[in-house]
């Protein structure tokens, strides 16, 4: 057996347990939802008797509120992921330094992660209450007029974004810091001897070496950001108007309020296409650069 073939075989043997498990827990539900999306399958009439072809997909595309939700979702995802990544990376870099109280900072900064999103939403809703929330109260002490955090369509979007960043930045910090910690020390030592500045080290050593971890962190966070719905449900229910109506909440409503599982599934597969495009795009950007720099 050639070395290449042997390696390929080893790879498959290693991957197999995961693939089998995944096949067992996810293949059937996936297949079911895909086939449902081509039929007139609702909760009131759950049957595969009426084949619709692509009609459910066409219905999704012809709904103006679908396009609105898609736009809100894209805005939301791109913004939260880039803000969380940028801030999270800065914090992780700082935590990776040899400083005192590291453990204390770290514990505090990763705390929001263990709070369930519904609870986070409810607590923030209390803090953001325009009349009775402490945030407006403290801002008032320094002379800032009360802000209508969730009741104004434009502001509501940013408030939801802010709460999401507050909670999910922990994820980025945890993952990026773990990446930084596992980096080899030698290149940095060599660069220090050569007199490289901190910024040079960051751009020429840290970031290129961190590429795979950054990629994983950004991809996973992106996928999670697309799934955000509990926070939206608790804070705004997609309102005021349709200003925070993200697609996953849109699909949730189609399923449990519209009772139209077929249309919900069709919309979900459209969403899958969008996410996949975005992820492949990010993948291409991050990996292609690696070849140039590293």
């Amino acid at each position: 057996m050639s070395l290449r073939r042997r390696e390929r075989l080893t790879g498959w043997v290693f991957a197999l347990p995961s693939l089998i498990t995944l096949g067992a827990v996810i293949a059937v539900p996936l297949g079911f939802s895909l086939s449902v999306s081509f039929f007139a399958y609702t909760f009131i009439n759950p049957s595969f008797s009426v084949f619709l072809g692509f009609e459910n997909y066409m219905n999704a595309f012809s709904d103006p509120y679908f396009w609105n939700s898609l736009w809100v979702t894209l805005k939301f995802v791109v913004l939260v992921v880039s803000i969380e990544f940028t801030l999270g990376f800065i914090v992780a870099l700082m935590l990776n330094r040899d400083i005192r109280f590291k453990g204390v900072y770290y514990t505090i900064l990763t705390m929001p992660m263990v709070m369930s999103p519904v609870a986070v939403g409810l607590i923030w809703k209390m803090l953001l209450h325009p009349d009775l929330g402490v945030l407006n109260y403290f801002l008032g002490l320094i002379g800032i007029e009360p802000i209508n955090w969730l009741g104004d369509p434009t502001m509501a979007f940013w408030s939801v974004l802010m709460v999401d960043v507050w909670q999910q930045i922990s994820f980025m910090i945890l993952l990026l810091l773990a990446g930084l910690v596992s980096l080899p020390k030698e290149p940095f030592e060599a660069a220090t001897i050569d007199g490289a500045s901190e910024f040079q080290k960051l751009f020429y050593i840290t970031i290129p070496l961190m590429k795979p971890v950054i990629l994983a962190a950004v991809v996973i966070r992106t996928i999670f950001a697309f799934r955000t719905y509990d926070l939206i449900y608790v804070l705004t229910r997609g309102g005021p108007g349709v200003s925070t109506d993200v697609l996953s909440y849109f699909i949730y409503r189609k399923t449990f309020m519209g009772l139209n599982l077929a249309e919900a599934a069709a919309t979900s597969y459209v969403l899958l296409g969008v996410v996949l495009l975005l992820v492949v795009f990010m993948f291409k950007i991050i990996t292609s650069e690696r070849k140039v720099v590293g």
Partner: protein
Amino acid sequence: MRYLVLAILILSTALYAGVTLHVLMEDVPETHIIKELLPDFEKKTGIKVEFEIVQYCDMHAKLVPQLMSPNCQYDLLEVDNYWAGEFPAAGWLEPLEKYVERDKFDISVYLPSMLKMVGYYNGRLYMIPMYNYAMGLIYRTDLMNDPDLRAKWKELYGYDMRIPTSVEEYVKLAEFMQKYASEKYGQKIYGSAMQAQRGDPIVMEWSNYLFSLGGDYYDEKWRARVNDEAGVKSAELYIRALKNAAPPGALSFNLDDAFRVMSQGKAFSMITYNWMLAQLNDPSKSKVAGKVGLAPMPGGIGLNGGWGWAIPKNSQHKEEAWEFIKWVESFEIAKKRALMGGAPTRFDIFTDEDVVKKYPWYPKVMWLVMYAKPVPEFQYSTQMIEVVGRELSLAATGKKSVKKALDDAAKELNKLAKMAGLQK
């Protein structure tokens, strides 16, 4: 442990010994009251009862997959009137006539409005009314009786201040209070603690305006009529109240947010569930305890709401579930529930001497419930509420004109009625 179980089994003379009823409940005050009374039922019948308490908005997500499957984990359900059309239409509930007839269960004691709402669907009995949440006006009696404010009102409008009798008058009073009560007390007092969050909060509140102005969602032939004159007028008044007499954040308020404003003494009134009166009178939750009163919705017709007991068709223990309904809805237990702060659905409880002694306003609540009107009940009630909620919220934010928003809502409402086969 084993011996204990054995001992209980032997001791229990009841027919259904050993069965555990799984009941899905929402977290309404009544649920906790019933929970406290459960030992009585368990002692009488030997049937154990386990409540699973879920929040309203998750309940639907939890129930739908259960009801669709061949056998349901739950033997008994608490069903909201929003779903009172959907569940029977989907064939998920057990019709109850045969149980009622067999056991001579008296349903004539229930208020007709309750039976209509969470009892019958398409002429068949699927539920037994459990609990009401008809809406009305809760207002601050201290502000209403304030001599300065009364004088000011008379000066401005030429007649004595009174509990408003129409929606217009209510909005006018709310605007008045926001201006003059705030002035007098040197702090912001909003006219109406409104709940205009998109989804069911805004729809629930607006429905009171709509019904009181003679409007409705559909006409008798199931053609949408939210965009007729009454509909437009009610939405305009509603938005006027939002702009001039409500907290600026009201567009994102649900019941809880609005309740906090009211309970902190920062609002004059609230269109809300009648039993919120008890909450607002509880000093551990509210700063205005003892200073609030209840009146019917100005204009006369508030939104009716309620829960009913229902047995899923795929329940494993239908007889035991019925046994439970008989117990919990018996006069004795229903009265106990009411005395502990429950929201009754029966004439004889509303007017019971002891109950009235403890809650003097209950006869008033009974009238409120009698005249209140529910949202239309059909397969797509929840969807209908979603649509109307979205369009109202768009109109309130100024993204659409009132007329355009209601026209769009009507279009989708017609579609839903057609889908349900109600509109030819």
